[in-house]
């Protein structure tokens, strides 16, 4: 009785294995080519770029005035005043002027200072925050 039960169990297992193998195989064979779909571009539209020429360079720093402008972010004054000292020591014929930008914030414009620099300056360094 036990012999018959074991044989039957083995036969069932084999049948199961054959079925499962053929099932996997048929799934692979039956898989259709992957379908292609079309989706829409999710981006917004960037504006055109207007190329701007850079300002002509200086032939020398001798006799020139460099404005060194602090945009007002914390600590910028320490660094930029050290820069003034460096120019005084290394380029004694160059005038380096520290200026604190007005306008109420480090991102805002200061038209008066810009006009002064354009009139009296030969070059400008602007110290950004952080």
């Amino acid at each position, binding site marked *: 009785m036990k012999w018959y039960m074991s044989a039957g169990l083995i036969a069932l297992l084999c049948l199961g294995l054959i079925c499962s193998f053929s099932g996997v195989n048929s799934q692979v064979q039956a898989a259709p080519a992957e379908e292609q779909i079309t989706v829409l*571009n999710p981006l917004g539209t960037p504006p055109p770029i207007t190329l701007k020429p*850079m300002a002509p*360079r200086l032939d020398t720093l001798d006799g020139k005035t460099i404005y060194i402008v602090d945009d007002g972010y914390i600590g910028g004054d320490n660094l930029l005043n050290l*820069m003034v000292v*460096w120019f005084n020591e290394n380029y004694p014929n160059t005038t380096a002027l520290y200026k604190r930008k007005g306008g109420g914030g480090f*991102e805002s414009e200061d038209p008066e200072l810009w006009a002064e620099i354009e009139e009296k300056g030969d070059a*400008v360094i602007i110290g*950004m925050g952080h």
Partner: protein
Amino acid sequence: MRIPAIALVLSEFYEQEKEKAYNEGMPNIRTQWVLGPVWAKTKEQLKKDVINGVNPISGRPVMQEIVEKFTKPLSEEDKKTGEIKRTKGPLTFTDTEENLHKMFLDKRYTDFLPIVLPTEERVAEMLKGTSRDPDEVIGRMSPTNTGGYFEYWTFTVKDVAINAVMAGCNPEYLPLLLAVASTGKEAISVSDNGFVGALVINGDIRDEIGLNYDVAAVGPYAHANTTIGRAWSLIAINLGNCGKVGTTYMGTIGNPMNLINIVIAENEEKSPYPPFSVRRGFQKGESVVTLFEGWGILSAANWGANRWGSEMDYPQIMKDITAQQGFLFGTCFVLSPPIANFVKERFETMEELEAFLAPAPAFGGGFAKMKPKPSAEGGEPAAKKPMPKGKMPAFGGSSIPIIVTGGSNNNYWSAGGLRPSQSVLIDEWR
């Protein structure tokens, strides 16, 4: 200015500034990169790191490079003029779903979570949520809250619908998203501060689209709240070019709330006070969304001012928390109905409560203005004048946004720094 100019910028911003220079039409602009930070260093440290230090990008002495950048002649490339036209690229992409998901991820069109692919059919279904022309240009957006620094990208009703599909929104959410997008306010700011956006929603639309404003009102616990918040971030990423680390996102620590933002539908039914939108001049019932930006909110229980006891003086705790908030975004409170009812027992109106709370000085622009100015007579700093009734400040101000939402299952509430900006009628976008 037609004179040579050099901007000093920390080298950590190299990628951002190169992109900015390209977009501004001066791709070869002579920026001087320096080792940061500048803020908080002593003069001796600055001398070592910058004045006598090297450009971290080129490895060459900073000051020598500055001199060269002033004096080295321009190349023909440096003198170029003209216009470069740009588009969003191809209008459609065709591939297998798996490849498209990978492409959207690689191109950073997503928030790194799986999205719903925006097929023409799904977008058409989404557009049924509005009567607006799909091709109507409704706004422009850039990655900075103050504007002007980054370029603005423009977008249409259909562009918003595409991103709403990607976020998993239902069509009936679209009018609210169009109202939000029309403001141009980005959900994800470039700022190194790591700001977060917030939406406060009032009126009938709350029930119409199933916004949760009871237990678990704030957070990913309802379909509408979650997907609307996510869509705002996807709109920022794809329609405003926001959130690209290194160029349009520089949050030093980052902010996990940028994923779905802070979406608050007010529990008007259980609030003892008029709805937030009504206090901003709208009619009760009108569907209104108000946009906020700031540090975010967290449980008021985190503040030492929240003195636990068998009897709680919530107005005084609110006042003490207010006194501890910074100047940039002031204070905001999100009260559960039980807390609002406690407060109501002492303050009949929000105006009386706000006056009691005495907010921190508003941001006046620039760190140099952080200290109160002396009065004209030379005495103590003048007290800040209250804002006229009915007017909302453009930036900072004396009003403290107080929102009532959530459940009544316990006495919990949140506080933080969020500043409101525009309030928009949603019905105009249906």
